[in-house]
């Protein structure tokens, strides 16, 4: 009896190694991946990912380049669908519904799951038209005044309104890099998603612009579920509530951010967050 009891801790250790730490059951789940595999041709980029992402928190994906964190992010709004010769196995449930089920409307899905890219990609149109585009294509504004109102609201949410309100009809390519990235955030918010995916949104920005984006992320989590991929571990520690560490296509550890950075369960995670590799 005594010997069996002593072996329990090591067994628990094994279980932890096999998969991510399950989230405390009382927290609601917004996004849930189960047994998710992803292939580029014959190359397997994601291996058996299982994770539960909670609403109205910021979840950061960290890991070295090529570890699959961006690929996983892009499976959450099926952005990988437009890359030829890719394949998905397993499930991604958003609000309990599998988004890879046949019959899912990808267009409607992407409206609900907004995305901001690593390199800001404003359309070569005016600032106003950039934000209005999503509203127009989704027929979300009934009148010109409603459209203008929604554009202003989105630009305010992205903390950009004061800087651009007098030049709304100038080209979006004329504003600074940091402003362009906030414009892309405003554009994504305009169609009122409930999830916002951000793929290294500040990696091309200077420290001041980066700080503005981080403050914005902090404000936005009141309204949105945010998943952010970052190379920058300080950034993950600053902005996120939960952190997932990816390595070679596997989810190594997923837990509260403070736990990941102060007392990670895995040796690999510890080595990475303390800068010993990657």
């Amino acid at each position, binding site marked *: 009896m005594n010997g069996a009891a002593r072996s329990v801790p090591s067994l628990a250790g094994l279980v932890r190694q096999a998969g991510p730490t399950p989230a405390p059951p009382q927290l609601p789940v917004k996004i849930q991946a189960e047994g998710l595999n992803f292939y580029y041709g014959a190359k397997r980029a994601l291996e058996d990912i299982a994770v539960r992402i909670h609403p109205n928190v910021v979840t950061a994906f960290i890991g070295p380049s090529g570890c699959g964190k961006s690929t996983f992010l892009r499976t959450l*709004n099926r*952005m990988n669908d*437009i890359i*030829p010769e890719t394949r998905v196995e397993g499930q991604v449930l958003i609000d309990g519904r599998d988004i890879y089920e046949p019959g899912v409307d990808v*267009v*409607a899905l*992407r*409206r609900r799951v*907004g*995305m901001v*890219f690593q*390199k800001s*990609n*404003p*359309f*070569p*149109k005016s600032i106003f038209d950039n934000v209005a*585009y*999503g509203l127009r*294509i*989704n027929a979300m504004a009934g009148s010109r005044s409603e459209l203008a109102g929604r554009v202003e609201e989105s630009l305010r949410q992205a903390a950009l309104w004061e800087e651009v309100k007098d030049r709304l009809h*100038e*080209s979006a*390519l*004329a504003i600074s890099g940091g402003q362009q990235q906030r414009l*892309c955030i405003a*554009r*994504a918010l305009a*169609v009122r998603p409930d999830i916002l995916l951000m793929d290294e949104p500040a990696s091309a920005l200077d420290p001041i612009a980066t700080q503005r984006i981080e403050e914005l992320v902090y404000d936005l989590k009141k309204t949105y579920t945010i998943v952010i991929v970052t190379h920058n571990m300080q950034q993950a520690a600053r902005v996120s509530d939960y952190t997932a560490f990816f390595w070679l296509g596997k989810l190594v550890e997923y837990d509260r951010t403070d736990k990941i950075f102060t007392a990670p369960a895995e040796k690999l995670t510890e080595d990475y967050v303390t800068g010993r590799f990657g």
Partner: protein
Amino acid sequence: MSETALPALGTLSAGRDIARRRRLDVLFQVLALIVLCVALAALAALIVDVWADGAGRLSWRFLTSFPSRRAEQAGIWHALTGSVFVIAVTAVLAVPVGIGAAIYLEEYGTRSAIARLIEINITNLAAVPSIIYGLLGLGLFVRMLGFGRSVLAGGATLALLVLPVVILSTREALRAVPKSLREGSYALGATKWQTIWFQVLPVAFPGVLTGLILALSRAIGETAPLITIGAVTFVTFAPDSIWSTFTVLPIQIFNWVSRPQVAFQENAAAGIIILLALLLTMNATAVWLRNRFQRAGQP
């Protein structure tokens, strides 16, 4: 990072090598300039020669008169209107079909073996001699479809001729549109068609237009396929519908050049000036359009 890693400037052993590379640099620049001068000189010689011969014949009357056995009464109106009619038919047929085919191949088509086969064939078609298209036009449009020797048959034949060029250049322009732009559009819940129509095509438009200029400029100078389908060399009236018989500027020029009288040679030179002016007008319009569209997205 050690301090001895950088040698002092004076000790750099690359000095002789740099001098040699500089000489090569200058040599290449001079060579390029000479080549440019040769090309421009040939063009200038052509224009000066044609202008010297034909400028005296240019007049409103020359522009608005019909052909005649007497050189001084002959005009170019029939051939000018013929060219404009034919090129209009060519554009109406080739532009939508060409751009549509390119959009399908580039945006919707899969990377299958059949797609590659089609791609290779289109590239080859762009290199087929124009006379072959003339024979195809003769068999298909003039005889089988019963268009006769009409503007429609001519325009349709030239449309087939330039279609590969339009498709290839449009695909090139579509391919040059950055992926990030498409992703940005899809991420907002745009459909494929909305993405193509609102984001991809406007950005690709200047490139598409460049391809169209090249294609239509080629069409307007073509002679062989139109002679093959039976464009007549001597018509005494201007076309008034797509069913009219017609001639075009290059055929009229060829007709005049083949006459022994000096006066007809002058007519030919004047005809060349008109043809060049027409080409220039078309290209200038396209360039103006392109700049307008390019500016729309620029800061």
